[in-house]
């Protein structure tokens, strides 16, 4: 009796869990919600049936403990059944294709479930439904439930079938929903060094440096569409600017920070000017050459740059009192956090400004852009200069953080990583760049434990992104302008 009640409760629990996916269906075309109650019934009945099966199986199992091989097969069948069944229920009779996220869940979750079941049948607790509950419940539903709290109002009329945004994208686009999350993130970021070891803080500083580099290159590539493979040169210029000015004149970090930005910008202009006429592959080759030239100069002009042996004993950013290495790292972390926030702020504003639109237009069609009155030369040069400014800035930070630099930190590989961050994350999108840095910098750091497979996974991942989401993980969205004519007229009067 007790078992029957329990089984009923489990069924109800399942009906509740799958409710948002299977019962509620939002018809985006007619803007109505379709309730598919039958699906809930199917789920309930199915889960009941499965539990009956399960108990039957347990009964048999108890009788024949010794038969291990047959066990495994039976397990597989038993586990496959609900998976197939769930997949079938979820996909059948839908005139609209499943949400991408749900599909991913079906594909990713089902095997996980399977693996977990097959691993050690003997020490698994009989409550098999706990697992699927846990894995079915979290991300997809949580995100949906969360987004449900902030139904976006006045969304753009979208033409269906153009692009299926993924869950991450939907999430990021909902400004209202993101605000508390951003706040949480900020609080976390501020508390982070207090919560973790010194080593982790250091990794975080690195991570933020890469984000800023990515955001800088994003201006050049993502917004203005100029394929720049020598971006690391500007980073090097910033780093060497600080190292040399500090070494020879003892200038402190705070003075060199703006100087580094200016140097970066000037170098951006110096590179930009001769390559104004070039586009695409040609531009890529020339910028690649530029990056190499800077590196070779750094390596060979020993009297000025100290050659391959580099410059050591660079001062850390000064603070009112002397800091231990750990405290210095923490201090660096906060400085970098501040700079990162500033970068995000500036780049966000630029993106939807007059110049940001001009960059995009230039990327899309150079001739039409000029014919609409945009000065190609000026627009391209500002893109190069503004992109390089950020690289110069973090170059200074990098030198101050490591206290030692040599040309090996500024090779083509670095340029390529920055480029990958932008491309994998999503060209032109700021959350995209951050996601890209997260995936390409932070995750490999965390995976240091499995060193051997790291690069393999990294490569496989890149290929997969390029195949399945060539536009990057988060694709850039254009700003939606709300124009209220009545309001505008009132304002004029």
């Amino acid at each position, binding site marked *: 009796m007790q078992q029957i009640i329990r089984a009923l409760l489990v069924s109800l629990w399942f009906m509740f869990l799958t409710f948002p996916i299977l019962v509620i269906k939002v018809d985006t075309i007619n803007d109505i919600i379709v309730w598919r109650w039958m699906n809930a019934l199917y789920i309930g009945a199915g889960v009941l049936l499965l539990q009956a099966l399960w108990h039957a199986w347990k009964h048999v199992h108890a009788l024949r403990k010794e038969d291990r091989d047959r066990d495994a097969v039976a397990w597989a069948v038993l586990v496959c059944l609900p998976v197939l069944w769930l997949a079938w229920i979820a996909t059948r009779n839908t005139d609209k294709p499943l949400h991408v996220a749900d599909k991913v869940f079906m594909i990713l979750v089902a095997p996980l479930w399977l693996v977990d079941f097959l691993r050690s049948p003997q020490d698994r607790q009989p409550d098999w439904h706990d697992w699927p509950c846990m894995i079915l419940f979290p991300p997809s539903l949580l995100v949906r439930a969360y987004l449900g709290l902030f139904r976006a109002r006045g969304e753009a009329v979208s033409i269906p079938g153009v692009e299926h945004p993924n869950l991450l994208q939907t999430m990021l686009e909902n400004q209202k929903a993101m605000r508390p999350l951003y706040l949480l993130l900020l609080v976390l970021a501020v508390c982070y060094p207090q919560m973790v070891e010194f080593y982790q803080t250091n990794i975080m500083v690195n991570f933020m440096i890469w984000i800023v580099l990515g955001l800088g290159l994003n201006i050049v590539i993502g917004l203005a569409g100029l394929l720049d493979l020598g971006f690391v040169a500007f980073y090097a210029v910033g780093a060497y600017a600080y190292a040399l000015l500090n070494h020879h004149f003892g200038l402190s970090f705070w003075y060199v920070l703006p100087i580094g930005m200016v140097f970066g910008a000037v170098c951006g202009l110096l590179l930009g000017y001769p390559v104004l006429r070039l586009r695409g592959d040609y531009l890529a080759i020339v910028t690649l050459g530029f990056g190499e030239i800077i590196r070779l100069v750094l390596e060979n002009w020993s009297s000025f740059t100290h050659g391959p042996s580099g410059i050591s004993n660079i001062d850390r950013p000064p603070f009112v009192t002397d800091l231990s290495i750990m405290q210095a790292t923490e201090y660096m972390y906060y400085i970098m956090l501040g700079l990162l926030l500033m970068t995000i702020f500036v780049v966000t504003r630029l993106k939807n*400004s007059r110049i940001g639109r001009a960059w*995009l237009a230039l990327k899309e069609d150079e001739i039409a852009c000029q014919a609409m009155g945009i000065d190609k030369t000026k627009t391209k040069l500002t893109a190069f200069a503004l992109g390089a400014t950020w690289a110069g800035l973090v170059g200074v930070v990098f030198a101050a953080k490591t206290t030692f630099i040599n040309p090996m930190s500024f090779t083509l590989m670095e340029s390529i990583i920055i480029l990958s961050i932008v491309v994998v994350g999503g060209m032109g999108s700021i959350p995209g760049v951050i996601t890209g840095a997260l995936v390409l910098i932070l995750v490999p750091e965390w995976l240091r434990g499995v060193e051997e497979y790291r690069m393999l996974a990294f490569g496989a991942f890149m290929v997969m992104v390029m195949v399945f989401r060539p536009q990057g993980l988060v694709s850039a969205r254009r700003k939606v*302008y709300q124009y209220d004519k009545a309001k505008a007229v009132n304002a004029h009067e």
Partner: protein
Amino acid sequence: MNNPALDVRGLCMDFGGLRALNQVELEVRQGEIVALIGPNGAGKTTFFNCITGIYTPTQGEIFALPDGKNRVKINGRKPNHVTELGMARTFQNIRLFPSMTVLENVMIGRHCRNRSSILGSVLRDRHTRAQEAEVVARSYEMLELVGLERWANELATNLPYGAQRRLEIARAMATEPFLLLLDEPAAGMNPQETLRLEELIDHIRDTYHIAVLLIEHDMKMVMSVSDRIYVMDYGQRIAEGTPEEVSKNPDVIKAYLGEDAHD
């Protein structure tokens, strides 16, 4: 009404050995709708490219008269300067910015009429905000003019063909031109759309008092919309006059129907 807006004299354009334009003379007066017609490959688009600064003509002089009095020589100027001066064009093969929204496409047209700086954009001070609001408002107005305001936040590439052509007109109009250059605006449109386009061109001329020079193959439209017509063939101007005069001109008939059979 009678002051000239565009004055082209002895325009020649060579591509290597090919003379695409040969001593072309053309004048557009303020507030006038002028059509430029001719068989395929006659050099009409090349003519547009020369006067908008995309090509530098080999010979000849092009004068723009924004206010009808001051003659500004524009050959050799960059396309963006020409547009700033007040000559805006559309393209035969549509050249929108596909991954920008419809409204943003028009906003690009406002670029040269707006002076907000980079620093201003970052700080978003009052001046910049006012300018941005003005850009949005004017762009919206242009979308309403061509009847696309419903699609304002849609990506340009998702628009149907005819709407894309009208969007190009809106974008060009956003630059506040005194002369609008339309390269085959009715291409790919059905008869109803063409009729609405005709009305739109008339409407633009009447409300904004600007001159229109249009290249078009649709003779019905050309005959009904234009005040004067220029006919080109093999890079040369072969006729000029009112629609009636041109349609009776034997040279024009010959160019269109061909007389190769006799040779």
